[in-house]
């Protein structure tokens, strides 16, 4: 992998990033677990970058790193001043409060001001199809209604870079179709997106570039087809053992 040149389009850049955490075993014993060992790649403005890897490859940890929740132990992560956010559904929902309160609260936790959320509240409620129920406590909602509200909040409040962990479609069948459609539209638009998945199908369908991660190490970065090709090759040989 080549060293990144000065590129105005580069929004986030990772170089030899490593991250570990401790697993508590008992009072005095803890075990070091290296989630990421050597990760390097760049994220450019307007692209949809797919991160592929098997379960336990460190994909979720990597998303947290990109989302500014944790910092690398080693290596560098450079953020060119963009606001990143994990597409987290139903963040901080309180079942006792009304849908309206939860929407505001959830949005504030996602990093927006009360004013910014209130400006979009109408769209959020309308998209979630909850106009009649929005003043009812969320505990009275069905799980489908909750999922709709959660998705609508996360979808309408836009960070500069959206980080998505597998989940694209939520709710009942109809809403699933609707949410998948708008999500695809957003991914294919000029929006910068990082999508994490273990399925090559999803990445192939939605991303223009991909990074393959195996056991916390970047194994390949480049065009989706090229990366998926080596990944699938790896899976095939892996299965033989």
């Amino acid at each position, binding site marked *: 992998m080549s060293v990144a040149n000065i590129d105005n389009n580069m929004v986030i850049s990772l170089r030899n990033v490593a991250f570990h955490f401790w697993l508590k075993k008992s009072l005095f014993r803890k075990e070091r677990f290296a989630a990421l060992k050597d990760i390097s790649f760049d994220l450019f403005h307007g692209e949809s970058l797919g991160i592929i890897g098997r379960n336990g490859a460190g994909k979720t940890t990597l998303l947290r790193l990109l989302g500014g929740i944790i910092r690398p132990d080693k290596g*560098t992560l450079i953020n060119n001043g963009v606001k990143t956010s994990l597409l987290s559904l139903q963040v901080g929902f309180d079942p006792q409060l009304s849908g309206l309160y939860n929407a*505001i609260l959830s949005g504030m936790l996602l990093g927006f001001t009360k004013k910014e959320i209130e400006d979009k509240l109408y769209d959020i409620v309308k998209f979630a199809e909850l106009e009649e129920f929005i003043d009812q406590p969320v505990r009275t909602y069905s799980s489908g209604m909750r999922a709709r509200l959660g998705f609508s909040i996360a979808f309408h409040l836009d960070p500069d870079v959206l980080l998505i962990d597998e989940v694209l479609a939520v709710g009942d069948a109809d809403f699933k179709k609707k949410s998948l459609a708008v999500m695809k539209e957003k991914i294919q638009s000029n929006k910068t997106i990082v999508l994490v998945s273990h399925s090559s199908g999803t990445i192939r369908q939605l991303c223009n570039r991909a990074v393959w991660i195996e056991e916390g190490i970047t194994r390949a970065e480049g065009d989706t087809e090229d990366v998926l090709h080596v990944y699938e090759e790896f899976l095939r040989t892996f299965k033989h053992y």
Partner: protein
Amino acid sequence: MLASPNDTICLNNLNQLSILFRKMPITQRHIELIFFKAYANLRSEAARTYLSFMWWIIDPILSMAVYYVVFALLFQRGTQDYVPFLLIGLITWQWFTNTINHGMTTIQGNTKLMNQVHLPKVVFPSIVIVMDTFKFSIVFLLVLLFLWVYGFDVGVAYLALPLILGVQFLLTTALTYLLAAIIPFLPDFQFLVKTTLRLIFFLTGIFFEGSKIPPKYQSYFYANPMATLIEDYRNVLMHNMWPDWQALGIICLYSAIGLYGAYRLIGRFDYVYPRVIMQ
């Protein structure tokens, strides 16, 4: 973190980098969040019971009744004006102890949330501090009303009241932040704190006057800042006497230092907490 030569190209971004990934100070947005979340939590709490927010008032009155029965009626320990005496001690103590008990586990308890969004961790205990302080202020106003109805007049010493309240707020916040900072690393500590607080409760002079203690133990008794503060409240509210300025100043100074230290400590571990707690 900034070691490899690749970084030189990004020196102009260092400033942004430090803002985004290093300091993460409390901003206007976070203060707005603290107050709105506290308000939402209070609403949510009220929605859980039939009498809703009436419980914030009923609860201290009930506990006051319990101690009155035990100490004034059964033990015959009641002194003159025992109800106001007990009431002032109890509600101010409850503000102190409730805030610490509720606040100390907030960083530890918000694992899920802090792994979904980045927030300065000091936000979590602050929400609880705002909630408990709000509940206390309602109860405190009611106690003031009660004292006036009971026959105590508003005196000049009332001028010192905001100061005593402020010092107690400082002390409570400092201790809550400090414990909230430590408990994610030592979760077992919270049980020790609860027991210690219960012990201190009996040693704080809520049921008895500090002056009734044998002189040789007095210095130990007043080493407890809450004992001094509660005596100050009573002096102001019941006897129109000024507080012990020197003691108040010392508590204020130590609390301010402790608060600053605890705030820095939480900030220092901002990115360590999500890692320590996730398992």
